[in-house]
């Protein structure tokens, strides 16, 4: 396979990565994209997956939104073991698990964020980022407070690292959320911004209802979830994006308060299930940018997940508890992209570098440019029925709502019958 050439770089590695409003408008006019995006605020073309003001008016939530939790076991003396995520918190009565949104109440486990929406926006699906999933469509994006790991570089820490009482939230039932999404012509609900695994019950019920009403659901997650709940959830989801933080246990332990191994397990399970998923790797200077590690990660992806799972290498900017490191040089991101392409990954993107040619999709067979992007916008899409118009190669991904909704998970190998 020929790596996509990156000769025509026009982004200054040391320049601010974010185009200003005028740059984007100028580009949109130049390429005729302005009309296509005029219904959405310009801010949505900038930045990464940051939280925008809520668009869901509704009753302000006082306190927490209690709901019976799934996936837990009773222990002695009223204690509970949560088996939703690999952390397996053992939680005594009146206490909460690590994520801060699941509480033991008299020996019964409860979610405290069922319908407690703290962020809601209509984002381009590219902002998740999902590049091979209904490109150019809006995703109704929501979050609740809480997360089951703690990344020291989290850009949404003001919701992910807080408890539900500490984040202003609106109570939105699954029915109301799906109706809102339908009335705004969004084909997809994205569970995103914080960590959807911790609002599993709400996501699960909403995704099931949405599917019945012709709306897909994508989970934007760290992949820190156990196999059983993941498989059950994927009966309702239509796509997944996983933040693959690094390829070292040390990084996961020191920088994210988590572990790599369960994430690898999740990726293999997703592959087995057959759901569409993409990977994002935020590259932080000196912490996870070692070329050897990137090479090993890419080789692991090809070997265990196949060459068709897209990888997005994105730029870090200082935030939350990592403010002493510089923004990732664009050259580093380009090097990561090349390493992944060399390892055999077919679709490798650069992220947080708007207007970089590495944002575009090129046919893995003939290298023809298929989708041109600027930031989160689609400037042009030349694919025909999910195929390259030049060489007719099928491009991996989900290119129509029909195929999104038609997805059915493959059974676990251990559950499958003979043959």
């Amino acid at each position, binding site marked *: 396979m020929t790596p996509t050439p990156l000769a025509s770089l026009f982004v200054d590695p040391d320049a601010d990565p974010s185009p200003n409003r005028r740059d984007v408008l100028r580009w949109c006019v130049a390429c005729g994209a302005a009309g296509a995006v005029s219904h959405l605020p310009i801010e949505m073309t900038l930045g990464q997956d940051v939280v925008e003001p809520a668009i869901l008016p509704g009753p302000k939530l006082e306190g927490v939104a209690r709901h019976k939790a799934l996936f837990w076991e009773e222990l002695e*003396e*009223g204690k509970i073991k949560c088996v939703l995520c690999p952390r397996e918190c053992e939680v*005594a009565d009146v*206490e909460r698990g*690590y994520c*801060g949104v699941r509480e033991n109440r008299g020996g019964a486990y409860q979610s405290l964020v069922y319908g407690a929406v703290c962020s809601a926006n209509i984002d381009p699906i590219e902002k998740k980022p999902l590049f091979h999933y209904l490109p150019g469509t809006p995703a109704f994006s929501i979050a609740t407070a809480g997360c089951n790991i703690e990344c020291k570089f989290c850009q949404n820490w003001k919701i992910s690292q807080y408890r539900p009482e*500490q984040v*202003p939230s609106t109570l939105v039932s699954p029915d109301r959320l799906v109706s809102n999404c339908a009335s705004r012509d969004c084909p997809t609900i994205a569970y995103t911004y914080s960590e959807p695994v911790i609002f599993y019950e709400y996501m699960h019920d909403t995704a099931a209802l949405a599917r019945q009403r012709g709306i897909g659901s994508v989970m934007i997650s760290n992949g820190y979830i156990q196999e059983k709940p993941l498989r059950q959830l994927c009966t309702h989801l239509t796509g997944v994006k996983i933040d693959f933080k690094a390829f070292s246990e040390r990084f996961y332990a020191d920088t994210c*308060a988590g572990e790599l191994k369960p994430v690898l397990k999740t990726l293999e399970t997703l592959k087995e299930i057959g759901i569409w998923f993409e990977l994002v790797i935020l590259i932080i200077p000196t912490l996870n940018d070692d070329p050897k590690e990137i090479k090993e990660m890419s080789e692991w992806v090809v070997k265990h997940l196949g060459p068709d799972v897209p990888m997005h290498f994105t730029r870090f900017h200082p935030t939350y*508890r990592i403010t002493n490191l510089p923004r990732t040089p664009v050259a580093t991101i380009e090097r990561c992209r090349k390493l992944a392409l060399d390892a055999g990954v077919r679709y490798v993107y650069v992220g947080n570098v708007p207007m970089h040619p590495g944002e575009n999709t090129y046919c893995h067979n003939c290298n023809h440019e298929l989708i041109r992007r600027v930031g989160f916008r689609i400037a042009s899409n030349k694919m025909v029925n999910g195929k390259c118009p030049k060489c007719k190669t099928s491009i991996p991904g989900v290119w129509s709502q029909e195929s999104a909704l038609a997805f059915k998970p493959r059974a676990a190998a251990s559950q499958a019958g003979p043959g």
Partner: protein
Amino acid sequence: MSMSSTRRQFLARSGAAMAGLAGGVDLLASTASAVELANQADAGDPSLQQPIRPRVAIARDEILTRGRLTQHRDLLVKMLNASIQRVADTPTATEAWRLLFKPSDRVGIKVNTLGLSTQPAVVDAIVAGLRLADVPAENVVIWDRFDVELAQAGFTLNKSGRGVQCRGTDGDAAGSGYQATIESSGEIGSSFSRIVAEQVDALICVPVLKDHNLAGASLGMKNFYGAIHNPNKYHDHNCDPYIVDVVSHRFIRPKWKLTVCDATRAQYHAGPARHPGFAWPLGGLIVGTDFVAADAVATDLLESQRKTKGLKSLDEDKRPTKYIATAGARGLGVCDLRKIERIEV
């Protein structure tokens, strides 16, 4: 600055946090133990060069275990005053309170209302003591994490600005009770309650003597998990060293003047939730100004009770109170029971 030796001894016993009163020792930079600080303060006075043992008073009266605690307000005041007088080694309780608190102090009383809760009658006795030090009622705030938990524990919320205030950090608009910034201290990264960070100069910690399923014991130091927005992140490794990281922070350590551990109705197992099967009507208070020493003594009582009841020690139960040793090793106070003067009142 001249000081009587009694005052000097008391300040030394009172732990590192008290040293600020003794003449401006830089508490933030200091990692010296109470004993070391005592030696520094008294250098040159041969009679005071021996390490001074911090005092922890244990006041008990069986009457407290009968009926409702509110029926025994006068007795609680007497017991607390006698304890603080013994700890401070002053001729009167009033002098002890005045050694610790100035009339201009804004005093935060951190109670514990998660599970088995601090009794309001114990806090009433503390407020009465503060009045002896001429601290105006308006300068006193009783606080914990949530309004709702304070109310459930029997406290009357008061945000009027008149009289003793009582409110939870999470009491008003969601999130507004915490600072917007993340503070780093050791391994923790947390937003602190505005009450402890911005609104008080002095702290009195009023935990309950109770077992904790992860930390081993939930006492004075553990009680300050209620000052940060994300305590749920710091339960690994028996909460060690996170508890110490929290209390080492400049918002807490230099302000923490007194611990009054509510042992009127204690619990020796299955905490922190209330569990009647392990209720322990001790009818007591544990009072100290060296917060590490106070926790060490309280833990010792807890361990004795567990032994009496035929339960495993906290160590054997894989819930060692490692954080107390860590606090001692870091010089926050004295954790070695042999170096603590235990006074029965």
